[in-house]
């Protein structure tokens, strides 16, 4: 037995030595990617002075690809097409012609189901989703969660009250983006709460829409709110209407509504761009109580200066949960808060690691963020 082990050891050492000494050049598909890269690896004798790597073009003619510096033994050829055969040639030059080498390799790029550089996404998604699900279930089981006061939303009762007293309508603009924008969805959630209160107070609500899909969704939301409030008879479909797809045409139309209908309360909630100040200034000139909110940070200053209450960024997304106190939405908001704490902890740990000269956490996240 001892003899067999000794022979096997000698044989394996010999094989390793041969492999170690034999020059090679190989190409392989980069694993766990979208099939856009090939890894080239080589090992050459010490006598080699310079190396050049060539790649065959679509006609099969080899073109210069890369000149490695001394000591480099690998290269990643990127921005390739998937399921494609790529051919490479390595030319190694030596001062003595006898030692010069020409090696060839080829590989086929393959798409993979799992991209390793997106692992951070997966982990984040799992952690955040798990937190949201946990809090939703806890809220549904009856656990009370605290949500701090959001002053911009406390104004809603005041605004509806004023509109009711004056006998004037409420204007609600769900932003200028399509239904695909998450801010529009958030805005429609708030519209649902507002429409419910407006139905209770029997106050008219006007909702001009820029896109047909938003119009359909807004009508559904308001109709459902009126039904929920037991005032389906008071629901007027024509109060939720389409104006135009054009951004400034839409704004001109709303300005006209503001100065002619003179709503007692204006709500600008959703995604807004250059029109934010035009809308809010016109509303201010009529003396309406104004609440605005957007996650477009560059438009927030205009709302801050011209509106009575402003929902800043994330507050827009928290608004629906805050107003409805619905278990599912409150649980979801708690899950988001968990995510914010996670972000703070990650930044602190990341900065500490960077100061200590350790960059793996940042590189790991950058792989997904790139």
């Amino acid at each position: 037995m001892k003899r067999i082990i000794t022979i096997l050891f000698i044989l394996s050492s010999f094989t390793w030595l041969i492999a170690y000494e034999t020059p090679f050049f190989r190409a392989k598909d980069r694993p766990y990617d979208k099939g856009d890269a090939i890894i080239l690896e080589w090992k050459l004798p010490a006598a080699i002075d310079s190396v050049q790597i060539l790649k065959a073009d679509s006609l099969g003619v080899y073109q210069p690809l890369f000149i490695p510096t001394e000591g480099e033994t690998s290269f990643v050829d990127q921005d390739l097409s998937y399921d494609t055969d790529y051919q490479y040639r390595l030319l190694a030059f030596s001062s003595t012609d006898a030692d010069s080498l020409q090696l060839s390799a080829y590989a086929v790029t393959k798409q993979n189901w799992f991209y390793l550089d997106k692992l951070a996404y997966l982990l984040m998604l799992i952690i955040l989703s798990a937190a949201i699900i946990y809090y939703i279930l806890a809220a549904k089981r009856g656990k009370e969660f605290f949500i701090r006061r959001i002053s911009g939303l406390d104004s809603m009762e005041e605004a509806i009250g004023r509109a009711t007293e004056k006998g004037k309508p409420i204007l609600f603009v769900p932003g200028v983006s399509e239904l695909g924008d998450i801010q529009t969805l958030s805005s429609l959630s708030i519209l649902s709460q507002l429409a419910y209160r407006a139905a209770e107070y029997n106050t008219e609500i006007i909702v001009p829409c820029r896109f047909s899909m938003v119009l359909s969704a807004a009508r559904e939301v308001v109709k459902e709110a009126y039904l929920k409030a037991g005032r389906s008879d008071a629901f007027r479909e024509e109060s939720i209407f389409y104006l135009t797809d054009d951004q400034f045409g839409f704004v001109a139309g709303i300005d006209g509504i503001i100065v002619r209908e003179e709503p007692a309360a204006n709500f600008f909630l959703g995604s807004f761009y250059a029109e934010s100040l035009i809308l809010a200034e016109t509303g201010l000139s009529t003396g309406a109580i104004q609440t605005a909110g957007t996650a477009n940070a560059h438009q927030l200053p205009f709302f801050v200066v011209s509106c009575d209450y402003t929902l800043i960024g994330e507050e827009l997304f928290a608004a629906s949960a805050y107003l409805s106190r619905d278990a599912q939405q409150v649980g979801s908001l708690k899950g988001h808060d968990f995510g914010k704490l996670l972000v703070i902890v990650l930044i602190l740990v990341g900065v500490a690691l960077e100061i200590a000269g350790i960059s793996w956490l940042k590189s790991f996240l950058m792989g997904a963020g790139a």
Partner: protein
Amino acid sequence: MPDIMNTVGIWLGAFFTFAIFSFLYKDNPFYKLAEQIFVGLSAGYGLIYIIYAALMPNLFTKLATDFGGNLILLIPFALGIMMITRMVPKIQWLSRYPLSIVIGTSAAISLLRFLKSDLIAQVAATMINPFATKVPSEIVGNLMLIIGTICGVYFFYFSKKQEGIAKIPSKIGVYFLMVSFGATFGYTVMARISLLIGRLEFLLKDWLHIIK
């Protein structure tokens, strides 16, 4: 003929520019006219644009030329038809299905997009060694970036009352937000002035030929 059309276009442009500007004084018939034409014209243009730039090339032409090879397009076609059922009260409920699909897919797609750009990329970009440089102003800048980001995020933490020690990072976050709002305000006002200059240039150059 093209010259006459061009001249008419410039005069109409000048007229509507003044009509819209007249709103700065107060609501008036000229503004109402410009507003109604603007809204109506843009809505009509939008409809025609969608037919010729989206429906025709992406749906009808493909189905007409290769019906068998584009069977998948029948799904959005059917969803579109279901949306139109809103006009028939009895089968209006059908339109809820395409709406649900749009809302669900949009939320899912946005989730990944924001996870990348607003969360992971932002977190990674804030993970810096503030003392990597020897320049004092850069060290201060790096520290402000880290503190501003952390306090800014904390301001939007809704699960805790902002009082006592918890109020401090929240207050710092608000100050950072307000400074950024001020800077954005100034920057955007500059951009708006350039828009006004563009409009004045149209009036003085293209219309009145006062400047060259």
